[in-house]
């Protein structure tokens, strides 16, 4: 369990609940939190606080939570909590005008609008708050979320110091961390890559290079001193081996030099390296240069910032304005097209490996952005192990965390350089979502898992996504000589993230054992289209090669992640949740029948355990589930309701209103 004082929390909602090591920085009282969807602008009064971990709003009527609601509470981040890293933009409203807030303020706004990276939008009215408090809270929030920060100031470290010794690792649920030589050897063995590739420890203690992990895998004949030559640049590093022996490799480009002499040296070095991997037993190598002819990070950044604006809605009117042109706006953001291009590239590489039996060498400047993305996607499509939850977490650990993806910079956790902020990992998750959405039975996890994973990017109690490289993490953690509570379970933030009940929803109820290996295909096809068409014209083997559809109509918006906070987009009593309860019921039934059959078989009378029925008796859920229950204030679906004036005389009105109550109670 992640935090210890959880019981107290549920009992006393109104008091601020602090995580171990968390400190209150500033607060303001009588803040009005608008209920966003309502253009009448009524809201809830409460206290707005800022700690070194989060911004939290403590509503006065918070005690009115019913039991159902607490069941779906996130253990770390409450409904009205925003972790500091989750804050995207802060706006102030001065005389009905909305302005971005940053730096030192001369004037303080009457309204504060916070856009979050998980696409929530909060609006706080400060009109009834004391001026001093307004100053303190606004400048506090702006400083702690917008000002550049030092790595050492991350809440992660204070949390790690304070919350020790509460890690329990379940050996069965073990995500491979790839921080030991053994893990790499195991992976080599699993993929049968150990004939041609070897795990090396030449970078132990980060002697050679701080970019690379301490252990990694290279082609067996490659001399270790080659690795040292250009600090790991220009070295083909093994990612994964296919059942037919072909492998996926990645290489970071050599530094660009002007000097002819050095260029000459680089050239002969590369020639040597290529010679090693071009001769048998290695397959023919195809080089994919991801730095040119493919996406640029700039493109991804621009697309996402356009795309997310479609979902960051300040008020209903704004929503309706964009709604009319929804599809063309969506298209013009080209986020979906970027997803398509990533999937397409991954299919192309899959085709090379699967059908043409070639090795593919991914080339990128640092081999830590698109390399991670493409190589993970290829493995997801080709290796059913990666489609289990543990396998997927191991994959992220291998390709992204150990692969040196700069989470710190790409998420802009330290607010040091906005230009570096590129949602590459989010793009990856969105690509995975497309696969999960198209082939749900092939995955052990659901879209809810992916959404939760994407949220955990901004929760600084998991160390996984808060460093630029394993070296950075190790050095920072070691200097402070911490026993890290999260090292074992860190990339599985799902454990204990929700209460047990909702865990069902995160595990894919249908993805059972995925054990079969890919059937080898004899057909050799020479181009992408043929490969793609032929795969799609055959029945899908969920345990084998899995390709996504990439035609126009097939790439979709990850509605759960992007639409969940928009009240207008709620479907009361509908959407997937509605089928989920039925599904759970049937799975329970299947299980109990299977038990019965087993029981008869062993002629044992084991005590019958009643399967828990989770959703059956709960109130009507909406498509927000499990991230929140209904937005309680949205009683009005179409237009705002308040009085019933101009509709008959008062008596009549009262009578009718009574009728409505009765109708509701029926």
């Amino acid at each position, binding site marked *: 369990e992640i935090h210890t004082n959880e019981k107290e929390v549920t009992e006393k909602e109104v008091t601020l609940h602090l995580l171990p090591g968390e400190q209150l920085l500033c607060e303001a009282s009588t803040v009005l939190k608008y209920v966003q969807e309502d253009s009448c602008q009524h809201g809830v009064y409460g206290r707005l606080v800022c700690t070194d971990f989060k911004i939290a709003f403590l509503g006065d009527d918070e005690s009115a939570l019913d039991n159902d609601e607490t069941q779906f509470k996130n253990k770390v981040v409450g409904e009205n909590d925003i972790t500091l890293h989750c804050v995207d933009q802060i706006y102030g409203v001065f005389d009905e005008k909305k302005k971005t807030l940053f730096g030192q303020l001369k004037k303080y706004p009457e309204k504060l609008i916070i856009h979050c990276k998980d696409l929530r939008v909060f609006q706080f009215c400060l009109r009834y708050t004391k001026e001093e408090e307004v100053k303190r809270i606004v400048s506090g929030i702006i400083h702690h979320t917008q000002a550049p920060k030092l790595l050492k100031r991350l809440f992660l470290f204070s949390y790690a110091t304070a919350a020790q010794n509460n890690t329990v690792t379940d050996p069965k649920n073990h995500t491979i961390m790839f921080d030991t030589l053994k893990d790499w050897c195991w992976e080599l063995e699993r993929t049968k890559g150990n004939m041609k590739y070897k795990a090396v420890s030449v970078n132990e203690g980060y002697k050679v290079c701080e970019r690379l992990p301490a252990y990694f895998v290279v082609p067996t004949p490659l001399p270790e001193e080659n690795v040292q030559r250009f600090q790991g640049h220009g070295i083909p590093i093994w990612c994964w081996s296919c059942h037919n022996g072909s492998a996926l490799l990645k290489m970071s480009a050599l530094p660009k030099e002007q000097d002819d002499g050095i260029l000459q040296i680089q050239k002969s070095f590369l020639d040597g390296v290529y010679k090693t991997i071009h001769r048998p037993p290695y397959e023919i190598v195809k080089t994919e240069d991801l730095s040119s002819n493919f996406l640029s990070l700039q493109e991804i950044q621009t697309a996402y910032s356009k795309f997310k604006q479609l979902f960051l809605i300040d008020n209903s009117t704004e929503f309706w304005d964009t709604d009319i042109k929804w599809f063309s706006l969506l298209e013009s953001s080209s986020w979906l097209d970027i997803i398509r291009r990533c999937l397409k590239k991954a299919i192309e590489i899959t085709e090379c490996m699967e059908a043409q039996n070639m090795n593919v060498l991914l080339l990128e400047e640092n081999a830590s952005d698109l390399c991670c993305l493409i190589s993970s996607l290829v493995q997801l499509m080709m290796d059913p192990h990666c489609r289990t939850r543990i396998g997927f977490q191991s994959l992220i650990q291998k390709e992204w965390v150990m692969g040196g993806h700069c989470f710190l910079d790409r998420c802009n956790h330290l607010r040091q350089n906005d230009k570096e902020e590129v949602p590459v990992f989010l793009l990856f998750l969105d690509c995975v979502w497309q696969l999960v959405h198209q082939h*749900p039975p092939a995955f052990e996890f659901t879209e809810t898992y992916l959404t939760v994973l994407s949220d955990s990017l901004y929760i600084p109690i998991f160390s996984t996504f808060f460093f630029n490289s394993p070296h950075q993490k190790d050095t920072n953690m070691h200097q402070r000589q911490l026993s890290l509570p999260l090292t074992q379970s860190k990339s599985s933030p799902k454990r204990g993230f929700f209460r047990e009940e909702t865990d069902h929803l995160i595990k894919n109820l249908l993805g059972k054992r995925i054990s079969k290996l890919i059937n080898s295909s004899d057909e050799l096809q020479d181009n992408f289209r043929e490969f793609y068409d032929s795969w799609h014209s055959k029945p899908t083997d969920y345990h084998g090669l899995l390709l996504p559809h990439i035609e*126009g109509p097939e790439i979709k918006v990850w509605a759960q992640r992007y639409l969940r906070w928009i009240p207008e987009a709620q479907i009361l009593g509908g959407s997937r949740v509605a089928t989920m309860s039925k599904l759970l019921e*049937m799975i329970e039934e299947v299980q109990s029948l299977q038990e019965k059959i087993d029981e008869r078989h062993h002629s044992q009378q084991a005590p019958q355990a009643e399967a828990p029925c989770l959703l059956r008796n709960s109130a009507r859920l909406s498509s927000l589930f499990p991230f929140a229950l209904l937005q309680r204030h949205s*009683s009005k679906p179409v237009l705002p309701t308040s009085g019933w004036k101009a509709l008959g005389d008062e008596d009549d009105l009262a009578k009718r209103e009574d009728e409505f*109550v009765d109708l509701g109670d029926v």
Partner: protein
Amino acid sequence: MWWGGRGQSFNIAPQKEEPEMGSVQESRMPEPRSHQPSSCLASRCLPGEQILAWAPGVRKGLEPELSGTLICTNFRVTFQPCGWQQNEDTPLSSEYDFALVNIGRLEAVSGLSRVQLLRPGSLLKFIPEEIMIHGRDFRLLRVGFEAGGLEPQAFQVTMAIVQARAQSNPAQQYSGITLSKAGQASGSRKPPVPLMETAEDWETERKKQAARGWRVSTVNERFDVATSLPRYFWVPNRILDSEVRRAFGHFHQGRGPRLSWHHPGGSDLLRCGGFYTASDPNKEDIRAVESMLQAGHSDVVLVDTMDELPSLADVQLAHLRLRALCLPDSSVAEDKWLSALEGTRWLDYIRACLRKASDISVLVTSRVRSVILQERGDRDLNGLLSSLVQLLSAPEARTLFGFQSLVQREWVAAGHPFLTRLGGTGASEEAPVFLLFLDCVWQLLQQFPADFEFSEFFLLALHDSVRVPDTLTFLRNTPWERGKQSGQLNSYTQVYTPGYSQPPAGNSFNLQLSVWDWDLRYSNAQILQFQNPGYDPEHCPDSWLPRPQPSFMIPGPPSSVWLFSRGALTPLNQLCPWRDSPSLLAVSSRWLPRPAISSESLADQEWGLPSHWGACPLPPGLLLPGYLGPQIRFWRRCYLRGRPEVQMGLSAPTISGLQDELSHLQELLRKWTPRISPEVHSKKRDPHTILNPTEIVGILKGRAEGDLG
């Protein structure tokens, strides 16, 4: 495997049966190239059907390819896979049957580059290697012809199709169709869907809705009030038939106000045509009209149905664009797909319909009142909205039976001009309003998967049935024409159809057949898939108890009269336009933007659900659909069926898979230890031999690893 299904419409895996078929075929027909259609082909013809030409061919585009015969008759083009008659239990094949009127585009292909578009009357310029039939229902049939001496046959069959299309008459019904097994005629109609052709049907339905202030009027029994109206309809108790007759005369085409649905909370949903502005009613008439509209309520809301909804021409244009977009060779680049889709405006129209229906549902639910849907013709959008409102508000309408009754009542009996709207008469008034409605229902099904008893496959089947001329349901424009044809009106025909020849007597089966006789077109396995396995009736309590209506039928003027238009209520001075000035309805307000929502301007026009429905956010049974851009989805399974690269069976219907598993387990358990009674009623499966325990465990393991995966 169940969820690998790649049938065009259904989730029934063809792979299972086909190997058997193939082997049967080989043993039975060693000479597949015989030039005489085998006798079994001829025996499969419908009465009056003549085979014009046929050729052996291979169904292409889907794996695995199927060999069979392409047949062109004077009714239809059909592809019969070899050995198909073995499993045949329907007179029409749903998968490969194309009624001549359904053929939207015909292409002959030779080699890689020669493609000829064949219009009725075209001359084929080469020997086709392949023929592509694009259905107007978005289906696609690709048949490749065999080479080696059979080219003339390929040529013949293609030309025969071209000619038969030119000669086909869209209003023509397959004559003499009977159910294959006469004894089980109504097998698929249990309980039979009321066709709303008798007074009893109307009375039963009225009682079911507990509409106590209403009665069945027989004033139109001879279709002399309006031919487009059903023979019976519901009018307020207090209104005499003579008053009804007089009042209806002042409405467009005689379509006066009638009850569509009585809300259990007390409200009434009415529909009527536009006021006939040229008429000059006297005081009595105006009073009759007003009290019919008022229906005893003091609060009356007139809904201008056409406001904010597309015109018929809009619908037609959007549908044409949609079809062009969904053609396999549509030239839209993948990254431009979304704006192209937006450009068709089809989804926009769906969204407008859902929004309006949702608004009206709120109006009907929020207080006891009379809500009148008024459309000039009262035969298109009124039916659409009234059906949608009932689907949103009444759980009964969301059952399979309820939905069929609803369509029968609000579309067929209410006189939606199916033949004209579906392009049968070639008139300019073609507009697939009904298909727009089906898409709206599909959207609801997507949004509320546990609230509907029927499945997407049912909607697809209905979608495809509108172009199969096997029953009269969609082949006529009015109840009068339909009745005339089926010979019901013997005693009245001398008045209305001079010179019309009576259909041959003894054809009594024909009378009863309607589109709801699914076993005409679909096999039992397919009909089973009409059920939504995710339907959870617990969500739909029948707890909308009829409530006493103290204020019902109080004479006197209504205390408030509103016009609902562009999302807002505007007070009206009077219900009828004749007294002083023309009604507001005469002014067309369509497609004006909604006024910006500012709290001030709406101060006296607010409406909506009261904020206190107790613990539930909505009254039980009411669904409010999402109609935002991202929530309106594209019906892939219907519209993209013709695109070979976008195949079916993408997202696994997990619930039906589980259900299968469940019934399998229950069956096993039952067989093994007969004393244990299954908890849940399980579907009948083919009996297996009794297995011993080890085998069962083996099967379970195998299934767990293989099937569920």
